[in-house]
């Protein structure tokens, strides 16, 4: 698979999460509803595109050291599908490589010394042709998406949303 030169499809639970939090013209996406506390709840979307959601998921997964390493793509529900266009991948290639390098440098499960990590992070630069490298990236992305959904799906109103935001910021600042 050459994901920099082709469309990439995410299936199953992760496709559901991506579609749930991304603005899309698809009508089959699950809605995330937040109430203002008094009035009716409204449907909320955070990310402009699927790739933004997937990318945020990857960052969250990496920060939380959460990988879904045992997921079998073939076991995923093929009916739930989020298709990311080749052009979107191409636009975000630099970001993807940057995050991938960080994943290689920090992943505790790679079994490499520092030199090998550095060499892998900067010399074995994925060109989009290696399923292995993409699968490595997706492990974090899937982990992060699950984490994201766990946090966000429980949010029912503005207060909870602001609490989540504040918690995130506190963690970012290292105060939590």
């Amino acid at each position, binding site marked *: 698979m050459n994901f920099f030169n082709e469309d990439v499809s995410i299936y199953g639970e992760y496709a559901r999460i991506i579609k749930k939090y991304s603005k899309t013209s698809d009508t089959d996406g699950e809605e995330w509803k*937040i109430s*203002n*506390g*008094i009035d009716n709840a409204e449907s*909320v*979307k*955070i*990310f*402009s*595109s699927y790739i*933004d959601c997937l*990318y*945020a998921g*990857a*960052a*969250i997964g*990496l*920060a*939380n050291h959460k990988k879904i390493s045992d997921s079998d793509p073939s076991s995923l529900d093929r009916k739930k599908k989020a298709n990311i266009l080749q052009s979107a991948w191409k636009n*975000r290639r630099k*970001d993807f490589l*940057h*995050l991938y*390098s*960080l994943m290689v*440098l*920090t992943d505790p499960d790679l079994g490499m010394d*520092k*030199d090998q990590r*550095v*060499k892998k*992070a*900067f*010399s074995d630069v994925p060109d989009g042709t290696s399923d292995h490298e993409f699968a490595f990236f997706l492990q974090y992305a899937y982990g*992060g998406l699950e984490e*994201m959904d766990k946090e966000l799906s429980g949010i029912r*109103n*503005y*207060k909870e*949303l*602001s*609490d989540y*935001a*504040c918690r*995130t*910021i506190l*963690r*970012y*600042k*290292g105060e939590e």
Partner: protein
Amino acid sequence: MKIKSIELKNFRQFGEQRIDFSGSEDKKVTIIHGKTHIGKTTLVKAFLWCLYKDDDSFKTDPILVNKDIEDGYVPANKTIVVSVAIDLEHNGFGYSIKTEQTFQYYKNENGDGAFSPIMKDPNRYMMKMTPDGDPEPVPPENVDKEIEDILPRNLKNYFFYDGENNKIDDVAEKSSLQDAVRNIMNLNIREELIRYFAPNSSGRVYDRFESLKQSTDQEQSDSYQSEIDRLTKENENQVSNNDGLKKDIETLRSEAKTLEEQIEANADAEKLQKQYLDEVRELDETKVFRDGCFEKLIESFDSAGGARSGLAGLFQSLAYKDSNLLTEFADIKTNSRAYEHQSEDSVDEIIKKGECICGAKVIEGNECYKHLIAAKDYLFPRDFSASLNAFNKVLVEEKDASDASASNIERFAIDLKKSVKRIDELSDSIAGISKTLQGFHGDVGAWKKEAHEKRETADTEAARVSYSESTIIPGNESKISDLKSKKEKLSAASEKNNKLDQYLAYVNAVEDIATKRLESKKTGIAQALEKQVNDLFHAIVGSSKTELRLNPKNYNVEPYQSGKKITLSTGQKTMKNLAFVGGLIYLAKNKDKIGGDNDELDAPDDYPLVMDAPFSNLSKDDIHRACTELPKYCSQLIITLLDKDFDLSIGTLKPYINKSYSLTTDDTSTNSAFEEDRL
């Protein structure tokens, strides 16, 4: 008029002479007789000079100075006073008239001299006797008028008759004859009076009444009335409208008061209502703010702007921070196998050459070869320590962006949280107020607004009423008063004009009556004059064969026999003239009996008849008849006669003569003197 005496001094042939004239009704004739050139005509001219300063008849010998004096020795510069004085009586008043002129004798170098008047115009003095006999001087400027009243100048040729020249005929052919009759009969005065009443006579009664008329423009008057009506109606409307407004004002103020009482009684509710409204407004605003915060917070989660933004950026930075990469890989940076100025290409070049820099052979698979291949991992572009440093540098830079993103998220999150909290507080408070105000349905704020509006409307309408009562209505009343005044003036002018029209009608009637009376008078005069002239002429001539026809327009008489105009002989002309003068005297004496209705203008006048040689051209019989008839017509008859005519007439005239004077001279002088005859 009767001439009582004449006194002459240094006048022509006369030195100092005075004679009295007969004033008797029975013996009314005075005769002055003498030879030729003795001074008879001079005496008649002396009357004319005294009364009218008339010296026309002295044209051939203009010097009035007494001939004796003139012809004698006269020293140079000698002055002589020439005078004629007449005493007369007219309408019960006595008059003394004196005319005098001073002459001076001038001599030339040869010793020849002549008299010349010092003042060209003679002086004339008049004294008027009051009925008590007291003399009273007549102012010089009034003397002419007094004389005109006594004997008008243009009648002088008729009553100072020059028989030698038959002057009547001369003047009869001129307009003065007409003037004479008109004067005697006061026709000129009547015509002048009629002119005062005649229409279109400028400056006279009719014209003056016309000029007093004023404009009575009915259209203007109607216009004034229309405007008065309009203004009156407007004021009525104003008053009516003001009454309505006053009721409205009262109602509005009463309603406002009720509302204000209601407001006062519900002051607490008003406070709560105000708080309720304020909080509802704040709630709405806060909700809008909250929605904005929410939108921005959601947007700030997105990482559409790149890896450094949104949640992705935050967690990426977090992962980097947690990794401690700089510390963890610090030794990579100082790896001894790295060559700062070598590159993978330079190693490939050595391998290609088969000989290392150190001189060792480089053969694929040998130690040297393996060593070089391994070294390439640390050379440019696979200089991993450099890449790691660059990577770290990027991550540090990314942290700044992440911090900014975190700051935004935090701000929006806090704002959102605060707004949600505030919304909850406000919702609770509003609910509490609502509960408190439950059952109270009034809107105190609306009441206040309504009360204020009612007060404001009432004040506005009160101001309108005030303006109407203080300005509009009085202004209109003033205009109405002004217009009424103007209209009344027009009405008054109309009434005045009506009166003037009545006066003008009277004027027309007066003019009409006066004109008719004048015409009647003229006809009567012409008829009476013609009759008297014919009667006297026939009596003097002794025959009625010749008829004298009088032209009623100019009073000229023409002789006709058997319907044909004839020419009279000189003697007949004299008799015709005597008859005409007699006719005039008859008219003057009988004004009140001629021409229908009479008035004070028809008071009879009595004129003397002074005749200078009237019988010069008559036969003895003619003289006899003339002397028989003339005294019947005159009240005073003064006649100068040649001695021969005196002799012929004395027999007939004697019963009428009271005074008779003979004019004589002696051998020592050229002066003439009067010597009264013993009859």
